[in-house]
């Protein structure tokens, strides 16, 4: 008898006892999408803390003019490792982690399409991270110079050539990024195959949860955007170790080729990073405003549109390399056009809240902050897309402020919303609301303190990636305020860490469905068993649990 097995009258899964070594083995050898997803997210959080501490040192150094906490070389390594870690070891694993854990649960599947490939993806990603950080030890290499890479996260040629960056640090950077990229591609293929081939009976693509939709498009972007990066890294390694001349300007090579290859990856990458946040908001906002996602078809259309337009805007990172006025105009135009589908998303999320009953729990707070901050981030993005304006703003702290607004105010806030929302499902325990509120307000205030001010430093002509600056150029107070903002941010993150630890030990039991949810994951026990569902559910609308909870007016009547 096939039907959604709803929480009631289900045999309690008996938890068998394991010794420590057995448990360890079970985790290392697991191919279960939930455990892999968890390991992704946890390692990403670990790297977030590491790179965050680096950022704190950066801010400490820049707090006052002519500061000497760290020297120039150390500083350059710090921002390189900070940026690389945040993008490749925090952002990317978060994508893989969330999609791994949630996609099968949401589409009523028992596992991912390729469980072993999935495990491979995780461990190869971890290897990449290890390679990157090994540079601190092995970076000296044969010619002895340098420890960690100090070429910046987009490592412009020819600064990366053997002549200008000796030692092996840059090689570890390239290999680390290359290897972890393989992992991302593996999990992307996996997500797509899962969503296309393992949906439970009745779940047509039009009924697939928005979260899954966004993650599928995200995986698509990964598949078409990461290979250019891999190609660039391979060429770089050929240059450095076999004496090839791809980026060797002495041999007639072009320094600009690297920039094109990198940004053909690099810009889609930033949407790869923000999409999990989009996905999370599309689930959290409806639940906490008790309304279905407003204009679902348009939302799907918007992500697909972004998924394609974002492939054609990369050179807006290169307005200052002296392109023809035509290319400049073209890339300015395409960059601004991306604003239209993104706008649709922002408007529809707002419309979802409009007329609802907003439950002001921590997840929703993070979503609301996301909406406002991402609005600012996007609009500064539009300013950067106006090429003449960007000639002034390029490589200034205005850009730094822009992308921290997108990456923290957008991505990180979205991720926090997701973690507060799904933690009960993952652990069976609720996170503390009070600690959650502290986390939210501290982090929100600190973040805005730091990065609103940095916009103005940029407008006053402060270039990025400088290890120190002279007083009397109007940057002093701005930088001091920005640095002070790190303190509340750190405090907020400590609240979060403490909240996780405390709640997983002795948090209030969550039950299967604490938020009165509508998607299938809430129809499983918390935490879900290895096999997710005893009986595969059968669905008839995009909100199966709503149908079950409201037999009198189910969604499928309106489809």
């Amino acid at each position, binding site marked *: 008898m096939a039907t959604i097995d709803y929480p009631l009258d289900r045999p309690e899964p008996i938890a068998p006892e394991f010794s420590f070594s057995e448990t360890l083995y079970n985790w290392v050898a697991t191919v279960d999408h939930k455990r892999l997803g968890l390991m992704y997210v946890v390692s990403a959080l670990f790297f977030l803390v590491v790179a965050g501490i680096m950022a704190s040192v950066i801010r400490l150094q820049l707090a006052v003019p002519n500061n000497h906490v760290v020297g120039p070389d150390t500083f350059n390594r710090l921002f390189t490792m900070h940026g690389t870690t945040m993008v490749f070891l925090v952002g990317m694993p978060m994508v893989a982690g969330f999609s791994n854990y949630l996609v099968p649960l949401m589409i009523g599947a028992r596992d991912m399409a390729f469980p072993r490939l999935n495990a491979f993806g995780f461990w190869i990603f971890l290897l990449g991270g290890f390679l990157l950080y090994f540079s601190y030890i092995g970076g000296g290499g044969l010619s002895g110079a340098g420890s960690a890479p100090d070429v910046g996260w987009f490592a412009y040629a020819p600064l990366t050539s053997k002549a*200008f960056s000796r030692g092996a640090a840059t090689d570890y950077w390239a290999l680390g990024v290359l290897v972890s990229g393989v992992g991302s591609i593996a999990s992307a293929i996996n997500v797509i195959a899962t969503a296309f081939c393992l949906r439970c009976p009745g779940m047509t693509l039009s009924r697939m949860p928005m979260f899954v939709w966004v993650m599928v498009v995200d995986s698509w972007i990964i598949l078409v955007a990461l290979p250019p990066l891999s190609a660039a890294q391979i060429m770089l390694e050929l240059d450095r170790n076999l004496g090839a001349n791809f980026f060797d300007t002495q041999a007639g090579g072009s320094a600009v080729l690297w920039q094109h290859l990198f940004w053909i990856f690099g810009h889609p990458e930033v949407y790869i990073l923000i999409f999990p946040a989009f996905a999370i908001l599309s689930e959290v906002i409806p639940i906490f405003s008790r*309304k279905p996602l407003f204009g679902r078809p348009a939302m799907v259309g918007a992500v697909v549109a972004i998924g394609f337009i974002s492939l054609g805007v990369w050179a807006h990172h290169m307005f200052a390399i*002296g392109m023809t006025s035509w290319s*400049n105009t073209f890339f300015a135009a395409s960059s601004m056009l991306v604003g239209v589908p993104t706008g649709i998303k922002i408007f529809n999320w707002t419309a979802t809240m409009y007329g609802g009953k907003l439950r002001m729990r921590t997840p929703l707070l993070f979503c609301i902050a996301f909406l406002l901050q991402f609005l600012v981030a996007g609009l500064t993005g539009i300013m950067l897309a106006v090429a003449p304006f960007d000639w002034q703003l390029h490589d200034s702290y205005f850009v730094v402020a822009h992308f921290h607004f997108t990456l923290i105010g957008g991505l990180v806030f979205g991720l926090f919303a997701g973690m507060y929302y799904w933690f009960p499902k993952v652990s069976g325990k609720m996170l503390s609301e009070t600690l959650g509120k502290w986390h939210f307000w501290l982090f929100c205030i600190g973040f805005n303190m730091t990065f609103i001010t940095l916009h103005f430093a940029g407008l006053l002509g402060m270039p990025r990636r400088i290890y120190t600056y002279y007083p009397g150029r109007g940057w002093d107070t701005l930088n001091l305020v920005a640095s002070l903002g790190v303190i509340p941010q750190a405090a907020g993150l400590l609240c979060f860490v403490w909240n996780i630890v405390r709640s997983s030990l002795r948090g209030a039991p969550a039950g299967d469905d604490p938020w009165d949810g509508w998607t299938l994951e809430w129809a499983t026990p918390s935490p879900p068993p290895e096999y997710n569902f005893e009986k595969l559910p059968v669905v008839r609308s995009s909100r199966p649990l709503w149908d079950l909870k409201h037999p009198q007016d189910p969604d499928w009547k309106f489809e």
Partner: protein
Amino acid sequence: MFTYALNALLQVQVPGITERRITDIFKPLATPGEAERQAAFLTLAITGAIFIVVGGLIIYTVWRFRRRADDDSRQEPPQVYGSNQIEAAWTIIPILIVFVLIGVSARVIASVQNASPPPKALKIRLIGHQWWWEVQYPDYGIVTANEIHVPATPDGKNATYLELTSVDVIHSFWIPQLAGKMDLIPNRTNYMWIDPREPGVYVGNCAEYCGTQHANMLLRVIAQAPQDFKTWTLGQQQPAGNDAQASGAKAMFNSLACVNCHLVRGTPSVGKFGPDLTHLMSRQTIGAGVLVNDAKNLRAWVNDPQEAKPGCFMPSMKLTDHELDEVVSYLQSLK
């Protein structure tokens, strides 16, 4: 030592010219910068309006529909699935706005990039080095470093055209008050132009990360009244200062390794790796703006450049005090 560095940009004064240390991109004093400012203000106006409208909408929604204590949780709000009219509206309006912005960008891009140099415009070739700027005046046969002298043109008639390239890695030329950035890329030449409206010292930085001392690759454009500029060029065209009582010092200098990296026109010192020193004393700073160019700093610099500019490519020459005195006195004779 660092206190000198700290003072570098503060003390410098060219007699009779104001130094503009606040590099506010919204206070431009040249045509390209001005065009960019206009584009910027228009963009700011539009995006600002969008922010107020959309932000206001979000805040209003949150405030208006936050859950009150009194309503009961079992009662779900009316389930609305969407509305084609509204969604069409907030798709089309942004598209229109975007087209306005595209128009603005296109116009300014063309006006700045496609301006062609008048026949007798001053041409300058700017070459990026790690971490200093080589400045060549092909028409005058002048080579100097880190300080770009150009004529100020209140009417914008005789603009200065720059050819930008690099010998090592990518650098970027950025004087916020004059114009936006243009990169200096090895094996490629970029072009840009500036026309400072007022005499003055315009400060800027290298704006593309170029390695250890990217932070101290400072840059100064010195705009002078045309006749002052003329006298400057005449001065620069003179051979290296050669007064009698410095001859001993000169011999000393030429006996040292300095000559392998520095050029002093008309002397055995013919190095090309470092800045041209022929008229060193006509420059106000040394080390691409890290130090004020006075006797004390010159001595400190030559003694150990690594202290003022750690990682820079001039090694400490480990000179004896006597050699130092001689060398510095010679350098000071290079008026």
